[in-house]
């Protein structure tokens, strides 16, 4: 139980409208789960709710991680429990450099673990950052840029993965990390994910397309439709979806009444 993110019967409304309608999913450390589905099926809502976005109202259900229901916790406390969200649309923070942002984030966590902590020594941080930049094929000068300010789509996605590499979460939700990237971009980002992944962490990889799954091999594939997970299986399910598209879901699951 300690090593799993357990989502139970999660119901969520956005501006009064039900968007998640009873999601059940368990992701263990050492596992990569791909969550697929058409636009508007609730994938990004699930990602935001797991991280604690204030705009979403949870109606019912629970999300267990490390033995507690994290739905009551603010986003920063979820992060300190090892949760991470790579945003589909990362937010620009003008005037704040990547280096400053990452060092602040690391120090916040150290202080949370030990209030007496004086922060990561600067030489140690520089070394760590250089190592992670190299891992993702990024120049050192990338760290001196303002967070997502004027970044290309590919740079934004790479910064998300850089943050994951530095913060070393135990459970990462990657929301459409492949969207807006050309094939080289997808490959670079996927290689980064593969290098970071290991038995110490779980990944929930949200994607619209099968493309990234050629590089990041999921252990499980789930299909979301209309606020529910309607199918689960192994990697072959992704290939099947690639072949059949999402149209068949509409036929099969469209007009089901809400439970």
């Amino acid at each position, binding site marked *: 139980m300690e090593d799993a993110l357990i989502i139970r019967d999660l119901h969520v409304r956005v501006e009064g409208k039900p968007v998640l309608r009873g999601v059940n999913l368990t992701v263990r450390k050492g596992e990569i789960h791909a969550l697929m589905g058409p636009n508007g099926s609730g994938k990004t809502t699930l990602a935001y709710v797991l*991280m*604690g*976005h*204030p*705009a979403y109202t949870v109606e019912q259900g629970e999300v267990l991680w490390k033995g507690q229901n994290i739905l009551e916790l*603010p*986003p*920063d406390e*979820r*992060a*300190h429990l090892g949760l*991470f*969200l790579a*945003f589909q649309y*990362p*937010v*620009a*923070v*003008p*005037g*704040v*450099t990547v*280096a*400053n*942002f990452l*060092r*602040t*984030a690391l*120090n*916040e*966590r150290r202080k*949370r673990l030990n209030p007496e902590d004086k*922060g990561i020594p*600067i030489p140690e*941080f520089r070394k760590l950052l250089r190592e992670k930049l190299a891992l993702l094929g990024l120049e050192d000068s990338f760290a001196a840029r*303002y967070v997502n300010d004027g970044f290309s789509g590919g740079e934004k996605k790479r910064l998300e993965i850089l*943050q994951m590499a530095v*913060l070393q979460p135990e459970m990462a939700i990657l929301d459409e990390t492949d969207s807006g990237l050309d094939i080289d971009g997808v490959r670079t980002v996927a290689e980064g994910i593969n290098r970071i992944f290991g038995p110490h962490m779980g990944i929930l990889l949200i994607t619209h397309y099968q493309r990234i799954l050629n590089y990041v091999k999921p252990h499980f594939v789930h299909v979301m439709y209309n606020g529910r997970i309607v199918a689960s299986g192994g990697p072959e399910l992704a290939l099947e979806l690639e072949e059949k598209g999402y149209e068949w879901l509409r036929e099969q699951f469209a007009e089901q009444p809400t439970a």
Partner: protein
Amino acid sequence: MAETHLIREARGIGPEAFEAFLETREEPEWLRQARREAWQILRETPKPGPNDEAWRRTDIRALAIEDLATVLVGDGATPPEAMRQIPERRDDLAGGLLLFNGQSLLRWVDERLERRGLIFTDLPTAIREHPDQVAPYLGQIVRPGDGFFAAMNAAFWRNGIFLYVPRDLEVTLPLRAVIGLQGVPTDFSRILIVVEPGAQVTFIDERLADDAVGAAFHNGTVEIHVKENARLTYIALQNWGRYMWNFTHERAFVDRDSTLDWVVIGMGGGITKTFLEVALIGRGATAYMSGVFFFDGQQHADYDTEQDHIAPYTKSDLLYKVALKDRARSVWQGMIRAHPGAQKTDAYQANRNLILSPHARADSIPGLEIMANDLRCTHGATVGQINEEELFYLMSRGLSRPVATRLIVEGFFAPVLDRIPVPDIRRQADTIIHRKLGVPPEEEF
């Protein structure tokens, strides 16, 4: 704690107070005459009220002019150690000056620069020792007729700073002055800067007072003349106590092909009303006006800026960034004026306000007055709150709400603070910003 022993005191701006004031001054006749003329103008100028356009948003009815200690002669002041140390950092500076409670307590200038003609001293000493360099400018850039507080300052100023950089002298390290107050009710300061053709200098002007003082009053004047091909970087840090009435009139003449880089950092004061103007009087002159302002509690600050394009091919660029917390209030009124004949003017003004509390308020009023036809003038003003998506993004990385807010505020100010060429001032501004946000600062990366 420091004690200033008062020798003499008189109040108000009436004839008796003014005569008593003149008696305390040992000054040449031309200056006494100038003070008398200013005092006449002051007598004829009513105290500004809510019906005066420039004062509509800053209410000073509670300020009793008749109670102001216009005459205040003290002795034996000892400044706090921290204040005394600032202008003493000889490795980082070309000269230092401390005026504390109106008295000149410390002064030094690199001897090599002094031999080449650099003058950096308190204004009364400058008037005694260098009248020919002072007299042509004093009261000619900011004139007593510019307003009630300009006239009051010209009549009653007590101490000040004179900086004179002779022709072609390039001063690499900054000159730094502190005007400090503690336990005195009033201060009238006057700064005069003359940069001769081809010369270059950086001057840091820091105003310090602690919050413990009850209601206090400061009236300041700053006059600047940057001559042909010269360059002045002027950094003013206003860190008065939060119960201070603070009024200033400041104007710079920027001459042919010269550059003024004017950075204002405003953090202190109770009620502040400031007039800041650049007059681009020579062809090809450039003026940058940058501002970083952060107010909290009940602080009220009202900045009136003017970019006066008089000569052709002149450029001005103003960027004032304001953050407000609690019940703080700011006003910025900016005017770009292109006079007839100021063709090819390139003028820009932007005022960005970041509101951190529901009860804080910013008024932003840009203005253009164009009397030439071949030019480019643009302006922008925004008032916004902290973006919730930005906060969520930062918090999702483990930053608490206060730390995320700190980062956003730092980022908001960074484009202006990054332009300050003196790291020490940058650090000091950061320290004050962190104190106001109630979070400890990070070490530098």
